[in-house]
């Protein structure tokens, strides 16, 4: 079966920039691939929780440990909690090399390349996501949800009522984005050029 070529840096390149699907009026959804984020995982065991909380403040100025399904922000960092004992620090620059040895007990791990960050925005953004994810999006801003879309584990950050950051496993990203695009056509969809990810850009 003949398949089209992909530009490696832009998984969504198969979907050309511009307006697609339903014509007329404002597009219901906009897709923007955000690249260049560094995602560093740090992990802690039950007895380290309090110390980890202090470490977050001291090392990264993250004011508190995000509650389950929540997130925290500070200058230059978005702190996410995908699992009970794991944290993801999203930053614009790599941080691993500059971490002190005292961080070793939190086993920092660079997982930046394992996720594709897709910004889905517009008045129909939540309707679109609810075509594939069975989670209640009428939750507070800043909610960070680990769930499934099309049988694949994904993460959704609610930035605001009509802005969501999807973190898709990079191997599934093209397939998932493709599927979302097909559904989005009924709302009118705008594919924007990929942009450099900024923490400010994903703040509510």
């Amino acid at each position: 079966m003949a398949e089209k070529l992909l530009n490696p840096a832009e998984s969504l390149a198969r979907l050309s920039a511009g307006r697609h699907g339903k014509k007329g009026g404002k597009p219901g959804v906009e897709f923007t691939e955000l690249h260049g984020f560094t995602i560093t995982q740090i992990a802690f065991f039950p007895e380290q929780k309090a110390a980890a909380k202090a470490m977050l403040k001291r090392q990264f100025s993250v004011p508190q440990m995000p509650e389950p399904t929540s997130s925290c922000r500070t200058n230059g960092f978005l702190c996410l909690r995908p699992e009970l004992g794991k944290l993801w620090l999203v930053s614009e620059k790599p941080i691993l090399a500059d971490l002190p040895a005292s961080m070793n007990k939190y086993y920092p791990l660079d997982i930046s390349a394992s996720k594709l960050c897709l910004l889905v925005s517009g008045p129909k953004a939540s309707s679109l996501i609810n075509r594939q994810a069975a989670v209640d999006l009428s939750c507070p801003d800043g909610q960070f949800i680990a769930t499934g879309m099309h049988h694949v584990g994904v993460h959704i950050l609610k930035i605001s009522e009509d802005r969501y950051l999807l973190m898709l496993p990079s191997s599934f990203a093209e397939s998932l984005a493709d599927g979302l695009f097909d559904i989005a056509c009924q709302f009118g969809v705008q594919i924007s050029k990929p942009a450099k990810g900024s923490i400010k850009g994903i703040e509510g």
Partner: protein
Amino acid sequence: MGAYRLNKGGRINRDKEVFFRFNGRRLKGFEGDTIASALLANNVRQVGRSFKYHRLRGVMSAGPEEGGALFNVNDGAMRIANVKGTMAELRDDMQVYAQNAFPSLAFDIGAVNGLFAPFLTAGFYYKTFMGPARTTAFWMFCEKFIRKAAGLGKASRLPDPDSYDIAYKFCDVLVVGAGPTGLLAAAELAEQGQKVVLVEQDFEVGGSLLSGGRTEEFTLRDTLLKRFEKAGGQVMLRATAFGLYDGLVTGVLERCSDHQSAPEPFSPREISHIIHPQHVVLATGACERGFAFGNNDRPGVMLAGALRSYACRYGVMAGRSAVIATCHDGTYDDAIMLASLGMEITLIDARNKPSRYAKKAQAAGINVLAGKVPVNVAGVKSVAALEIADIDEAGEIKENTTIIGCDVVGVSGGYSPVIHLPSHRGIKPRWEASINAFVAGKTPENIHIIGSADGIFDHQACLDNALQITQKIKGQKTGVKLRRRVPGGMRALFEVQIKGRKLKSFIDPQHDVTSEDVRQAHREGFVSVEHMKRYTTLGMATDQGRVGNVLGLAVMAQAQGLAVGTTGVTTFRPPYTPVSIGALAARERGRHWRPTRRTPMHHMHLAAGAVMTDAGAWKRAWYYPRGDEGIDEAYVREAATTRQNVAMVDVSTLGKIAVQGPDATEFLNRLYVNPFAKLAIGKARYGIMLRDDGMVLDDGTTWRLAEDNYFMTTTTAQAGPVMLFLEELLQRRWTDLRVHVTSVTDQWAGMAVAGPYAREVLAAEFPQLNWSDEAFPFMGVVEVTHRLGQHDITCRIARISFSGERAFEIYVPSDSGAQIWSALADRVNEAGGCLYGMEALGALRIEKGHVTAAELDGRVTLEDAGFGRMASKTKPFIGSVLRQRSSLQDERRPQLVGIFPKDRTKKFSAGAILCTPDAVSGFGEGWVTAVTHSPALGHWIGLGFVAGGAQAWQGKTIIVADPVRDNFVEAEIVSPHMFDAKGDRQHG
């Protein structure tokens, strides 16, 4: 005589004409008509033929209980079968066809079935086609004709061109049914601040308010709707709640575009909404039912309330002169309304005591007769007259009858609350004698059944009920219990039989089930209601017994001498009305049937001309043809190049797991069968892990990067299951171990460079490393920072071999995968090497006898696969005890072997069974797991398992048997290591 359109009235839009075709004939209707109302307006009384007997049928109702007006709609790929004409909105250019009539509705060959009626009774198929003398061949012969002769609609065989969606919704309260009760409850709840979704299967909200014909009812409807929407409530029209599931999750099918002549491009035709509410309010109403009497299926016999619906909602009179038969007061209001619109009516009441509305009816010009029941319909093409008889207080029906000429008959035997959705939850219906109908039993779940769905038929009581429920949901105590009763009392009437006359009286017109069928089932011993249903097929058509179930149970109860309602009921299951398969599949079709997984170098393979193949969800390069090579030439070239020169393959699909923590070593040591405690930092080790039952789970290579930091690889197929197993062990069993496991499969791109010149090629790309055997021994690992263009890329390189050649695996973060691959591909090509794909990789590993998931299929032990010596004798590990159970020690167990065809020109396939020559049957002695035409050996070879292993088959012939492909090949069993058995090539 006949049906006609009133000059005014109804909710149709008389300013918008709609033209459609019925069986090719062009007809006119209006916006707001259904197919059924438009046909009646055009005096089309015959709309189809019945399933078994091919009797003519007309419109019977005005709702989803319809058993007669079922149509094929649309041409070509858009054709839909069994469309209920009473529910389908009319649209411009609609093509409507009668079903089950050939060559035409009027002259139908199948009607001859009617002559065979005495033989076509219940259980016809079982009796005719089962038994010692009948064979399957006989049935298959007859089946072709039966299929043509019986049946409902004809589905299209073309692919469905429409798209469908599934949508997940969350709310506080889901209200099902937007009649007066549902509308009021929804409005109140929304005003209370609840997030309310109101679903209505009709194309307008209002329910019974739409067919009352009274201005104040239309006004009430408008007012309640406005209140609801103003309070932020969401209405879903054309949306049927088809199933109520665990956790109150409700499936609702929304029909988005069947009513539109020009649907929005890109919009789905239907959406299955999966709604998650905290409370479900069921205001699904009650469905009128008739009763059975002679030839009650003729065109023109309808539910009494339907006559009113057509008149008041659609402005259509179903006839000019009616006999309306009833047993309760409710029908009087229907009759009075119809009379006011010009229908000539005789109203016969099975009750002997005159109704309190009798005088009012008479004043409206209706001829009211008490103590009378219908006996038989005269007329074949449509109603011509109705024969009626006297009934006394005791229920005895007199033999002398009167005939009343009429062109339409209305029937009402009462109302059955619609309780399908509670039944989906296992809530058993119970018989409520005061209304002669079933209501739903109690439930601890947040399911609230209100209004006529709960057997409350008084209008004000229904509204009070709605208010009650909103209080209850708010958590407040509710008021007085509302009484279920049929105002004015009713006489239980389910069937009219007259002595000495054998008449066909229909209980389930859609499946042609008569009351006699039910009695026959009983006579033949099918006394359980479950058996009666399946034996007679009562209630199994698209109306799902709405009209017929109660009648069937009543006939059955009478046959058994029991009271109605004590026989038990069958269980209603989802879906409530038919749901398109497309709406259940939604987007999971075609290329989105399942998600696709691509490696970081996917596009590079395509650019290099690779033909791709599937490995689970992954796409992998199968082979890279050059020029006009086919697969056979390509993989042989690729394999040969790997063995003789250098080649590169994408191995990104392997599972990769970061295992970190102070107890990581202990963890791995408990997991793998072979020792891991002393694995040196900077070394990798091949490991096998078992399940608790002693069977091999997976194999892989784990690298030690630091004291407490490991990089584990697994097979592609088992990546997910192994990850889950690790998490399970750490959270359920070894809860004191401090280990973090993280899947990093997508973080790393992997490529293997293999062959005698692999080292040279890599040294050219990574000159900063020492590539000597001393510095980089077999199973050694190094991490290196590599500068490519503007970037510094972390690379992990290990000297590992799956192909059997000297080989190295290079892992880089996946966002650099393509660049590194590209750089290495250039070097490989410069050296005269090539890229290789799965076919070549398979050939190489089969030659070497290296196992994959094809061999380690969950039924295989270490010994079976030839790894017995790997197991540590000093440490316990997962599976260490049960792998030693006696049944797994049997020497006769199938063991890993190689297979050569005796005649080297012959070929065989994976999946073939290995048999001794004198017993080529059954399960044989073993099986073939993988085959290839070996580039190194020049003939077909296979890997597989055979009882006793290679030593048991020395000098013996085995047959490789493939009865499916009719291929039987003589073969010899050899060691699985069919090439370079000593492993010199990878260690050298």
